[in-house]
């Protein structure tokens, strides 16, 4: 398909949209589907047909609308009215919504206040298509200016200009470590030889994190477009998306999206009638957390056991089958098209000195608004938790926020005004991570939290290197003793020594960061540890504090 045909599709979509009286968007991300979202969508579609509004009203399933705890969510965009959103929608309410759209007066009940900070304080770049684009229709994505960045890159730019634009944006890897994306791209671009690969790491595995899943489910084409631009910039013709097997919906939608894009010549051979070829295949993970580590991921794609290997050589030099390989996270790729369209320098105006753009967070735990939010880098944690997140429910008080999952740490109340950026979070012993943000109140015990994450790392260690394999077992053993009231101060010393050993000597990132939850809780909540050890008391009342209760 050539550029003119794509433009024709866009025009058709815009014309159809102008003729529509209203669009009703049902959140079709896994969260809302789990609370009955598809029944709501069916009810909406049936009601539209029944009331003969088929040409006037369009029902579409879109990406995550954010307020996951209030699902199923339905958003109504009428021609002549302000957008409205409904929460906890039932099939009965769905019928009432359609009648309201047709009759011109929407139901008053179960309305979401769209002026609340949860919606107004967000800055949407990665999730900008949610509510607008039907995840299963490429025409919708095209109408939202989708693939315009790819078109611009292929027709107006040279590969090195693309790399320069990404470097200028200051974008850093959204998978957690925050490596400058432009630098990574230029390393792969400079690497010699044919057969380079572009890989998308969609093996999101942190407990409580669902940012990448939401992007893949809601806007798969955005990721494909980002990968295609990357492939053009570094000179690759083959891409892989490594997505975890626990995300069946994301896999289905990715497959649909790839098929649609291939049919429109936006992927495959001679993309947009240029000399550029790029093919994307999906590889499905089999449930190993360690496969999110890039060298283990490579091993897994190659069909081998998913275990890491020491770096260097880095995948940018020798990755998949020894070829130079670019590996970025889902959210990183989702940022590419907007950067190309708006310009790198424009993107760089958002955020802090060293952390540019926005970050998507999955709010979970003891917080009123659990869900998906996208905020500018540098926003104080307090704003995310109290303004956007709505604070702590049931009149309880904030105790800690956990970021970065099993590789991250707990941030205490004293640091609530900390700006959220890579350096600031690392400075207090946590990490940005991939964007999981778990809020805890006084009913959470920090020793138990550390024990939980250590259990996770112990079970997810690949078993290759000794410090991680055996060190996490022993650290968990000691933390377990603490929660049972049988640990003494000698155990605390052993724990601290082991934390250092595992951090310093483990082979890959999993082991090197496995002790972070322990070290950060020890640093910020040492007195809570001492209460368990010295007084044999769990201040939060969580730990059994006796040996019989095996958790």
């Amino acid at each position, binding site marked *: 398909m050539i550029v003119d045909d794509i433009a024709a599709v866009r025009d058709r979509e815009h014309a159809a949209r102008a003729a529509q009286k209203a669009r009703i968007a049902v959140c079709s991300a896994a969260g809302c589907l789990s609370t009955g979202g598809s029944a709501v969508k069916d009810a909406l579609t049936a009601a539209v047909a029944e009331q003969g509004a088929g040409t006037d009203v369009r029902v579409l399933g879109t990406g995550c609308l954010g307020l996951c705890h209030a699902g199923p969510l339905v958003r109504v965009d009428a021609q002549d009215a302000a957008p409205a959103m409904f929460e906890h929608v039932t099939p009965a309410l769905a019928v009432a919504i359609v009648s309201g759209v047709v009759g011109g007066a929407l139901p008053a009940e179960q309305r979401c206040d769209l002026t609340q900070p949860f919606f107004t304080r967000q800055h949407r770049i990665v999730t900008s298509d949610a509510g607008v684009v039907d995840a299963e229709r490429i025409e919708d994505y095209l109408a939202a200016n989708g693939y315009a960045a790819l078109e611009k890159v292929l027709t107006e730019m040279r590969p090195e200009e693309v790399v320069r634009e990404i470097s200028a944006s200051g974008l850093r890897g959204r998978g957690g470590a925050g490596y400058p994306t432009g630098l990574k791209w230029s390393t792969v671009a400079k690497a010699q030889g044919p057969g380079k690969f572009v890989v998308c790491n969609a093996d999101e595995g942190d407990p409580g994190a669902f940012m990448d899943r939401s992007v893949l489910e809601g806007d798969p084409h955005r990721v494909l477009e980002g990968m295609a631009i990357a492939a053009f910039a570094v000179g690759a013709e083959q891409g892989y998306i490594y997505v975890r097997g626990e995300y069946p919906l994301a896999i289905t939608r990715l497959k649909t999206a790839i098929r649609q894009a291939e049919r429109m010549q936006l992927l495959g051979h001679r993309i947009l009638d240029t000399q550029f070829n790029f093919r994307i295949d999906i590889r499905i993970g089999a449930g190993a957390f360690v496969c999110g580590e890039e060298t283990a991921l490579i091993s897994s794609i190659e069909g081998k056991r998913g275990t890491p*290997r*020491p770096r260097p050589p880095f995948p940018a030099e020798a990755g998949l089958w020894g070829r130079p390989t670019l590996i970025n996270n889902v959210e990183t790729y989702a940022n590419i098209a907007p950067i190309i369209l708006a310009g790198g320098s424009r993107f760089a105006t958002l955020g802090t000195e060293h952390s540019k753009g926005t970050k998507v967070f999955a709010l979970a735990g003891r917080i009123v608004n659990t869900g998906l939010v996208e905020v500018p880098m540098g926003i104080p944690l307090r704003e995310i938790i109290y303004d956007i997140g709505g604070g702590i429910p049931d009149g309880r008080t904030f105790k800690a926020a956990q970021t970065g999952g099993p590789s991250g740490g707990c941030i205490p109340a004293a640091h609530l005004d900390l700006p959220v950026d890579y350096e600031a979070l690392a400075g207090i012993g946590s990490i940005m991570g991939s964007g999981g943000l778990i809020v805890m109140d006084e009913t959470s015990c920090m020793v138990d939290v550390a024990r939980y994450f250590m259990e996770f790392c*112990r079970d997810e*260690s690949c*078993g290759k290197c*000794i410090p991680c394999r055996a060190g996490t077992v022993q650290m968990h*053993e000691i933390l377990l003793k603490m929660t049972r009231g049988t640990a003494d101060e000698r155990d605390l010393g052993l724990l601290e020594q082991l934390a250092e050993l595992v951090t310093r*000597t483990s082979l890959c990132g999993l082991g090197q960061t496995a002790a972070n939850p322990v070290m950060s809780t020890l640093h910020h909540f040492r007195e809570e540890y001492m209460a368990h050890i010295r007084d044999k008391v769990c201040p939060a009342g969580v730990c059994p504090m006796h040996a019989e209760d095996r958790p």
Partner: protein
Amino acid sequence: MSVTTLTINGRLVSAAEGASILDVAREHDIHIPTLCHLDGLSEHGACRLCLVEVAGSSKLQAACMTKAVEGMVVTTDSERLRTYRRQIVELLLAERNHVCSVCVANRACELQDLAVSMGLHHVRYEPQAPQLAMDASHPRWIIDHNRCVLCTRCVRVCDEIEGAHTWDVMGRGRQTLVISDMNEPWGDSASCTSCGKCVRVCPTGALFEKGAVATNKDPHFVTYLRMAREQKLWNR
């Protein structure tokens, strides 16, 4: 061949290009403890005993897998490295059932040698004492997982030297286990050629001969085999 010059423990040493820090150190009689490494096999980089300090790098590097580079300044022995190495051996001793007095590899065991050389006479960690099944289905040898340190020498020698690839690794974390074929009894293995190389390279008593009172392990035959093949000593 071009030569690289670097400093190890304050000594200026030269190395062939492409050599690992471990190669260079051994060539100059500088001792670095190892466990998963075996001359003649590919590097695994997993035991972390050969970690060394490289000036200018905040991360410790595995000597077996890090190439010697011109001007590199390496420290192979320091208080910190000694502490880490000791802890690693301690962790291994607590992980499975390493009871030297009843082990067939007593006094012929690399894990025991490491512990002795470190003056390790006490393990501070909780013994995990797993109850792992032994496999005595092979007519000549036994694998006792309770003594396995997961160095994967057996896996590598079987794959890289014998070419049978009978052994591999299953599971993860503390559940990791060396298995034959698709986790079938060793004696039923269709791929095993009964060459016995795995038994000879095993650093502990995990792989041993039936009826043997003490094992006689000599893993150095691997380098001989490799050399003989490369120099085509057996070709007519």
